[in-house]
């Protein structure tokens, strides 16, 4: 008889990385549905196309790096990156925009760093920021809520056959930025008159929140990052709003506008580029939330999830050095990079 010779433990929880990643993809479905409902088929087309591009890029580069292609594709990480980027892109994005963004995310931000687990930055956000800086007009146009284009129009937009401006309008974040400080003007804007935030956007964010709660329930993610993220965003908003309601939007508006929920539950929780210890993750996400509020309020861009996440990706190793947990039998935690 030939006996298996393996180190302990000899049993495992029977999960694998692919399963974890699939759970993340499933959890985005409510959000995707809400996007399609509010803004037309564009987001779905983006996501599907992004997945296809990602898989092809991943396969090509795995092959070029001499890695077993099928084995690595099974970890579903490329799919997750593609889905997240596809969700973040405007529903009016033409195919080539997605191609460039996803291609850059997979090839440069992930594979060139050594593949899954080795990338210091969130690949989807790298792709997003690349596009945002290179094609600012295409990236900041968004369909006005409740004005979803017909499927045929969405397809035409996707293929680059129709002019985007025919369908686009200002987002609630844009609008607030434009009229901030003028209470009367703000009060007159329909787009800011949702139950929680702007109409349409609150639905999308609620859907992503739902998906995020599913991830929490399945223990795919832990509570530290989403809670700290949202707290970091909401607390300064609350304080500032108390001081001057006309100049500063309220916490609910911030939480349910733009990419807040997508960022809190799906983007910032990417474990590869986040901090590792529990306390570290809390600080990491708290600072992301704070930075989003700062950029939204004082910066040049209407939304800031991508920038904030990338800046904190940079700081994650540093945060890790100072947030080692206190190990059993030690009176205090070790701090710093080196002994």
């Amino acid at each position, binding site marked *: *008889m030939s*006996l*298996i*010779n*393996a*180190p*302990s*433990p*000899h*049993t*495992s*929880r029977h*999960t*694998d*990385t692919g*399963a*974890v990643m699939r759970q993340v993809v499933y959890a985005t479905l409510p959000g995707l549905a809400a996007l399609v409902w509010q803004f037309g088929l564009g987001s779905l087309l983006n996501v599907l196309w992004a997945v296809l591009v990602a898989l092809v890029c991943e396969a090509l580069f795995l092959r070029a790096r001499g890695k077993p292609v099928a*084995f690595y594709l099974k*970890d579903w*990480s490329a799919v997750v990156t593609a889905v997240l980027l596809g969700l973040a892109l405007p529903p009016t994005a033409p195919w080539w925009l997605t191609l460039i963004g996803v291609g850059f995310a997979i090839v440069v931000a992930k594979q060139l760093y050594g*593949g*899954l*687990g*080795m990338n210091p930055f969130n690949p989807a956000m790298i792709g997003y920021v690349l596009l945002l800086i290179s094609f600012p007009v295409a990236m900041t146009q968004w369909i006005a809520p409740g004005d979803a284009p017909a499927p045929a129009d969405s397809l035409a937009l996707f293929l680059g056959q129709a002019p985007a401006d025919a369908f686009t309008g200002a987002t609630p974040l844009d609008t607030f930025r434009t009229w901030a400080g003028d209470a009367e003007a703000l009060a007159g804007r329909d787009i800011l008159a949702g139950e929680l935030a702007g109409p349409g956007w609150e639905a999308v964010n609620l859907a992503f929140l739902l998906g995020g709660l599913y991830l929490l329930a399945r223990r795919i993610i*832990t509570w530290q990052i989403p809670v700290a993220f949202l707290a970091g965003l909401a607390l300064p908003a609350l304080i500032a709003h108390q001081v001057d309601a006309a100049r500063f939007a309220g916490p609910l508006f911030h939480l349910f506008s733009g990419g807040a929920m997508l960022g809190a539950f799906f983007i910032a929780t990417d*474990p*590869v580029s*986040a901090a*590792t*210890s*529990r306390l570290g*993750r809390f600080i990491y996400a708290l600072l992301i939330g704070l930075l989003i509020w700062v950029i939204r309020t004082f910066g040049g861009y209407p939304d800031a999830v991508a920038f904030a996440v990338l800046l904190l990706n940079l700081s994650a190793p540093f945060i*890790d050095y100072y947030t*080692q*947990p*206190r*190990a*059993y*039998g*030690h*009176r205090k935690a*070790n701090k710093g*990079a*080196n*002994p």
Partner: protein
Amino acid sequence: MRANLTLFQRLVPGARRAPTYDFPGGVHPAEHKSVSNQTPIAPGPRPAQLVLPLNMHLGAPARPIVTVGDRVLKGQMLAEPAGAVSAALHAPTSGTVVALGPRPIQHPSGMDALCIVLEPDGEDRWAERRPVADHTRLGPGKLIALLRDAGVAGLGGAGFPTSVKVNLGDHQRVEQLIINAVECEPYITADDRLMRERADEIVLGIQILQYLLNPHDTLIGIEDNKPDAIAALRAACADSDVEIRVVPTKYPSGGEKQLIQLLTGKEVPSGSIPAQCGVVCQNVGTAWAVKRAVHDGEPLLSRVTTVTGDAVARPGNYEVWLGTPVADLLRHAGVDKDRLGRLVMGGPMMGFTLHDPSVPVVKTSNCIIAASAEELPEPPPEQACIRCGACAEVCPANLLPQQLYWYAKTDDFERAQHHNLMDCIECGACAYVCPSHIPLVQYYRYAKGEIRTQTAEQIKADRARERFEARQARLEREQAEKEARRRARLEANRKKQEAATESGAGDEKLAALKKEVGQASSAYKAAVKAAKTAEAQEADNAAELRARADSLKAEADRAKAALRDAKATAPAPAAAPAESSALADLKKAVGEASSAYKAAVKAAKHAEAEETDDAAELRARADQLKAEADRLKAELRDAKAAQGPAAPPAAPAPSTQDSGTSPEKPADTPSVANTAVDEQAAGKRQKRLKGLKTAYNMAHKQYKEAHAAVERAERAGQDSDEALAAMHAKVEKLKAKADHCRDALDALVEQAKADILAHTGKDLKTLKLDAARAESALRDKADELERRRDTSDADTLETLNSELDALQEHAQLTRLALKTAVEEQGLVEE
């Protein structure tokens, strides 16, 4: 510390009173316990051979006291404990020792180790047993010795000898004795069945442990998945002070550190043992073994082992003789060899795979899992770590396993240690949950091994460097001393040379002085005569003449003294053409010095006889000259001794004494003018010691060489008898010479020691002892301080520090006393 009341505690009355604490992390693997805990403990197989490794326990392997062919009885000791941490080994049944040699044993790396192989005779005849009905009558000392001789070791996992664990110092107070009945690993039910069936015996064992450790509380920690065992223990403990604490099922609650945290909220400080925080843990099976050893007089011969897994037809618990090959046990349980895919000794979380089923069951083998490849399949290939942190969520030691993994993988051991890798208990919870199937524990074992090796090498390198530096310093010192001696010699030679060139002038001066003396004395005599005449004539000027005669006498004496001085100081006539060797120079110097001394003595005697004023002065001068002569003599002897061996061995080596230039007294009589110990004498003795040592070493070496040469010649048988006889004679002579040197050396050392005694009132040995004692007291105090640095308050540390300072001063003083005593006597510290 949080006190978590679990659902179980809320539901089970009685459990509520005792708060249990929680430990971070942990996992809940499928239990698989009902596979093996449904049937009572059954007897194990009766194998054809028992293979008994000498290191079934943790610590030094036992020392065999039987030889191949010995017939032994059941319970007879086969190997005795060797060293402080060790346990005895006994024959599990009667039979014959058929082999004593290496066999594959229960080791993760599948290595071989020394085993005693016993062939049972089937009679199972007992040796004499000595049950102790009342252990309190025996006393702790004898009881501990009994446990040691009975081979009782921890049956839970590590196999630490129980006699060591219960033998705490008087100063160590045990607050809690914890009986570990958790059995948190899946599959294993050995303790579960043992508790259900032998709870009374276990409680008796616990009472013996209580007697030895005298704990404030005794707690049994048991998981809530063993309700029958809990009930049995409750019944058995009904009228004792043993408290049963039920803990929620979670792996690894049964880890020693985790159980301590669960039951007491204490954490064992990193790098120490539980006893340091007042806790002693014993496995429930060990308590049973203790009872058997004491009350029944039965040493540890067998243990309850779970045999489980879907490749055996009759899973269950078996009371297995130690040394039973796993293959026999599996056959006994009805193994299906074709289905067997993975064979694990221990549990599925921390056990290790066996590749050879012939390895024996030992004291720590609590479980054998014979699983099919479907039940415990081949691990899937390792995927990339996505730093998901699932491992950190389950780590009971609160580490960051994913960080440790990166550091281990990139050989960044410094950072791994900074992240407390050494506190990892290798429970496997992290690898159990890892979605990327990374064998994390294996990475940690690798890194730990590397760190241990590196630390050991670092220590070794440090020691080598220290040795090298010490040697370098010694060589430099010796070089400097050599140089100083060379300078001194040159200086002496130069002076001598000058004296020699001056001696021509000296001769003339001497003649002039002689003349002067002659004139002075004749003037004196004339004056005396004149004075006498005057006195006889009673002339007026008689007194005047007398005075004049006196003054003339003084004048004459002065001249005489000057002549004597000149004679004494003037070196003898210039040397004959100098012998080239320094030896010749020295010889000459000795000759000169001794004749000068003799002259001086004569002059002094003369002066004394005449009762001249300068007699005392002359005497002193003579003494000085004698000292000088002695010094030169000693130098000559040393030089000769050092040079002696270089001379052809055919020339009989002169003993150190027969350099005899001074005929009047033996050379080494210590009647030096200065009886007080002074530096000069010390230096002299040191020089002599060194010279003698070199001489002895050389002589001894020559003797050895000659001896070897003779033996060679005898073996070759080519030389004639005469030649051999001559060689023998030579050897004898060389031996005599070496012995002589040795004796002289010994005498000198003894004398020096006696002087030390006379001088300091203490002999050398006492001085050395004092120094060593002070040194070790200092070390102990420093250790204590180090140990208590983290745990004590500032006041205690302050006291300790001042004590340390005092000890340091004392040590310095004793060291100094020793050094001074030794140096004063010219001894060289070896």
